[in-house]
């Protein structure tokens, strides 16, 4: 079992252990969760260390045959356990490990049903890792679906007053997206062969190790000319093979020629939109975003942190890996529309954030706006845009985690998140105010913090893109004005002025923390490292770009052919 598999299975084993230990033992469960997530961070650091940045290929691969089923004239069905990382997934894996650890520290405030909570939390950790590490579409989908389960319960059981509505909404929204992804996954499976196994079946080579570029060309030529016996063809869920246009069966549903039309639209285009929609719900993209504010408002703080910090990124990851990665022709074809959706998301989310009275909802909408930049960057199909999109995801992961933690800090004290319930918090809570100000400024794109780089590069990509008109970039810059507006307005309303707190807020205080006491040591322990991480990737953006660059360069080759 290699490093990456450990990343997936240690949390799953941890979840099992927590579930099997009898009785409610909060301290023990917390300890296990903490230990597991610390190990995760160490393992991801080890992965970072072992990864060769200049090499664009998938690395640290582990492959095992999982299901192989000969289906006669339908070929051979095979599903692999296949994990690996490249420059696009590695930053997200490290991000996930860090955010999950911070989430555990933040979970110290969870006191009810800790066994179920931490068990689900660790299950979530494992499935998230699985999502980013799986290279087999089926395996990915399995983790993707399985992630819903712990998330549903974490919101539904430990959430706020409208938790049932929020969790059902989250679940159904995402499930609707999954159905679309599932359809595309099956269509892809039926259209793509596994060249290595097929070559062995066809007697071209003896062992998988003999597979060379020449063999591939020969095999693909045979496939294209219809010289290959259909019963020899091994179908696959392997993304690596799906990304190669030569592996598509001629005349199949998703073959590159686009001869299959559905309602006048080439099937590949349709499949692209389906899979785009599936991941767009996750990111989320306006108008498929309304699950997000509800889920955030109802979710307990650590779950919000994980949701915003990591889960949304699976949407962006799916864009790069599946939607654009497997359907480059469609991504180029609809670039303007897609980037336009990104712009809409940026502006619409920003305007929405401006109108919110609930601090957490404001931050949730700011997440929507910031995720719009990810779509904008991806849709630009430029090196700047894609690198910028991955960077923006990492940056937002760190910063949104910080923002939701900060919201939680206040909520723990007063059980009130309304912006207009507070004035002048700077005086009683200077440390809290300072860290909030840092998080706000970092999020609104102050140079030195990562938000600036993410926005700069996605905008640069979209402005440079041959696919996009200039107005897309111009309108998108409205997003950075809006971000300044909603963050600064909130800062002014809540933290400046003479200190005043709506009386019922302080009365509702039920925890052992003094109302309006400044940060505790545990809270500082979560927030300050995040701020430092943000600062370091903001000052040294090449920490991320060195990882992403070569992979993105190769990824872009698929578009150069067009």
């Amino acid at each position: 079992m290699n490093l990456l598999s450990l990343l997936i299975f240690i949390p799953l084993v941890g979840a099992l252990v927590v579930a099997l230990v009898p009785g409610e033992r909060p301290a023990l469960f917390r300890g296990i969760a903490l230990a597991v997530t610390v190990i995760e961070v160490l393992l991801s650091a080890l992965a970072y260390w072992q990864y060769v940045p200049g090499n664009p290929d998938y690395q640290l691969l582990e492959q095992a045959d999982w299901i192989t089923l000969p289906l006669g004239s339908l070929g051979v069905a095979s599903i692999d356990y296949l994990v690996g990382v490249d420059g696009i997934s590695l930053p997200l894996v490290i991000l996930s490990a860090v955010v999950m650890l911070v989430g555990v520290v933040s979970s110290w405030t969870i006191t009810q049903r800790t066994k179920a909570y931490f068990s689900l939390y660790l299950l979530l950790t494992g499935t998230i890792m699985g999502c980013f590490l799986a290279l087999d579409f089926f395996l990915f989908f399995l983790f993707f679906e399985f992630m819903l389960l712990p998330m549903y319960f974490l919101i539904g059981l430990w959430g706020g007053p409208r938790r049932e509505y929020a969790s059902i909404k989250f679940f159904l929204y995402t499930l609707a997206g999954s159905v679309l992804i599932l359809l595309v996954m099956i269509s892809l499976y039926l259209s793509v062969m596994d060249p290595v196994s097929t070559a062995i079946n066809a007697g071209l080579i003896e062992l998988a190790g003999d597979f060379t570029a020449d063999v591939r060309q020969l095999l693909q030529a045979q496939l294209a000319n219809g010289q290959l016996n259909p019963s020899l063809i091994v179908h696959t869920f392997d993304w690596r093979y799906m990304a190669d246009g030569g592996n598509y069966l001629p005349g199949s549903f998703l073959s590159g020629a686009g001869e299959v039309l559905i309602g006048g639209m080439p099937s590949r285009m349709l499949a692209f939109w389906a899979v785009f929609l599936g991941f767009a719900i996750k990111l989320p993209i306006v108008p498929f975003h309304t699950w997000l504010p509800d889920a955030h408002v109802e979710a307990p703080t650590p779950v919000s942190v994980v949701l915003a910090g990591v889960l949304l990124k699976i949407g962006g990851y799916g864009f790069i890996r599946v939607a654009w990665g497997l359907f480059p022709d469609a991504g180029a074809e609809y670039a303007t529309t897609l980037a336009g959706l990104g712009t809409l998301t940026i502006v619409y989310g920003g305007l929405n954030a401006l109108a919110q009275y609930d601090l957490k909802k404001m931050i949730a909408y700011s997440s929507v706006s910031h995720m719009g930049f990810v779509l904008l960057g991806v849709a630009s199909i430029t090196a700047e845009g894609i690198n910028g999109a991955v960077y923006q995801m990492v940056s937002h992961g760190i910063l949104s985690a910080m923002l939701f933690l900060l919201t939680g800090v206040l909520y723990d004290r007063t059980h009130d998140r309304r912006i207009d319930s507070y004035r002048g918090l700077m005086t009683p809570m200077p440390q809290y105010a300072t860290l909030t100000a840092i998080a706000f400024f970092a999020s609104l794109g102050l140079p030195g913090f990562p938000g600036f780089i993410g926005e700069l590069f996605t905008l640069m990509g979209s402005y440079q893109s041959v696919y996009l008109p200039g107005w897309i970039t111009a309108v998108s810059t409205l997003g950075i004005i809006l971000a300044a507006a909603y963050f600064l307005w909130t800062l002014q309303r809540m933290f400046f002025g003479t200190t005043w707190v709506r009386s019922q807020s302080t009365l509702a205080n039920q925890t052992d923390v003094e109302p309006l006491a400044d940060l505790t040591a545990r809270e500082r322990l979560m927030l300050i490292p995040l701020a430092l991480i943000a600062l370091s990737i903001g000052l040294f953006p090449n920490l991320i770009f060195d990882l992403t660059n070569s992979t993105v360069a190769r990824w872009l080759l698929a578009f150069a052919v067009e």
Partner: protein
Amino acid sequence: MLHTLPIQLLTALLGLPFMAFGLLFGSGNRSLAGWVAVCTTLLGLGISLYALPTPPHTQIWSTDWIHFQQLTVRLEFRLDAIGKMMLVLVHGVALLVQLYSLSYMHDDARKGRYFAYLQLFVGAMLGIILAGNLVILYAFWELVGLASLLLIGFWYDRPAAAAAAKKAFLMNRIGDAAFLLGILMTYLNTGSFDFGTAPLPTIAGVCLFMGCVAKSAQFPLLTWLPDAMEGPTPVSALLHAATMVAAGIFLLARIHPMLSPDALLTITLVGTLTTVWAGFSALFQSDIKRVLAFSTISQLGLMVAAMGTGNVGGALFHLLTHAFFKAGLFLAAGSVIHAVHTQDMHQMGGLRKALPHTYLTYLICAAALAGVPLLSGFLSKEAILGGAFGWADERGWLARVVPITLLLSSGLTAVYMARQVRLIFFGQPTNTTVLSPHEPDWLMRGPVWLLTILSVGFWFSLNPLSAHSSWVVQAIGQTLPEGGPVWLAPVSIVLVGLGGWLGFRLREPAADSQLAQASQQYGYLDQAYQRIITGPTLWLASLVTRTDRRVVDGVVDGIGLGTVMLAHLIRFLDRFGVDGLVNGAGKVAMGVGQLTRSVQGGRIQTYIATALAVVILVLWLLL
């Protein structure tokens, strides 16, 4: 002594203020904080002076910061003649302002934080000066905005200060968004972020200029600057008069070769309009600092117009002279406020006896600002006006509107400055008798005197009536345009005299005077923003939220509800339809069975007859 500046000194120059910021940030109200800040700046000033006589060529330090594939963003710094002038200017004024602050902020409980923010500002401002390409410049540009926000909102518990801080940052953000677009356009056109040498398309130039519009408070993004006066007065002197707002002018000097003729024309017009607009707005203000703020905007407009007319030397020269006398004015105004505890000039009066030093310094600096001969302001204004007339001569009669407007508005300066001096220092004391105002200590008086002395024209040019042989202009590697009519100097002197006389004699207008109100509301610009931008944006925001709740969620919940209803319908159908059918079928079968049983009991003829009847029935039904 010719030498280049070693990299260590550059690092020290940039690093020291940021280190001081980190050190002082949590230092509470310790008195030592101020001295640490003063020493840091003194050290910086030393390095800047050491760098001054380095050879005139541009020195560049560069290293890769971000690079992938064809793109490289370099962490690049450059030092050239203009930069050296700015280094000395920023350090010099910052040093004096901090010395002044030692006394002015002595009783403030958070003075450690105050000096920390000042150091952050100095560091960021140095970054702008030394930035070697547009991205680095933009980064420090934003950081300066942050420092400005922190310092304007330093007394954050005052709602007005908090609002002003936010307003300043937001208005700057609007300009900066366009600036960023301009940078992207530059990159698209030239393939790099370097300061180019060839003109870009007009739109790119105008976008870059928008950064200057916001930072240097040009029309229409000027209303943040009067509000920024909510900050401590030394901050107004340093940031919002002498240095930060001049960053826009500095930016124009850097990007000047990249501006197309049309972009330059736009810049000229914006600068000219700003000068008049702000001059008019300064006329009837009653807040001592707001008058100065508008005079700053007006002077910045003059510099911008000079840049537009191609007179880089004149603009930079005015930037330099203006920095000293305007900082002097603000610090002297701080002494006044310190003495009488109000900023309303109508509550002052007759202070020249109680505050002789302040009076004298204020008078000299105001005269320099108004453009009285022998003082520095006269020299630089003449340089700009002369250049503008020369520019207009090449462009026909319509273009003369620009220099004539500039000339008249510099007459306007004399009016409002004379009015201000009259209101503060002459006439009868009104409210202030109870307080027995007195001069501040020498820690505050010293810097003001020094700045006043630096407002004398002699320091800048040996010829007190013309700057053409000025060593300063030569030192920054610029030349002033020849041209300008011979009558210009006498006419402007007469205009200044006339304006001063008018300002001194003018009665205060009635409170309900339309003109006075228009001036006090600076042309209702803020109201216009409220109506055109802020209001509609907030309306749109609430509309969008309602759309989310009603339309988007309406559809989502509708689909959910619809599905549930469909499920219920299907359940109903299942129970009464399918189940009914199944049960029904069972019953029918039983009934038929009974029937057939009875039939079976009969004879064969009955079978045949029945079969026949059924067949006929079926056929009849089908056909």
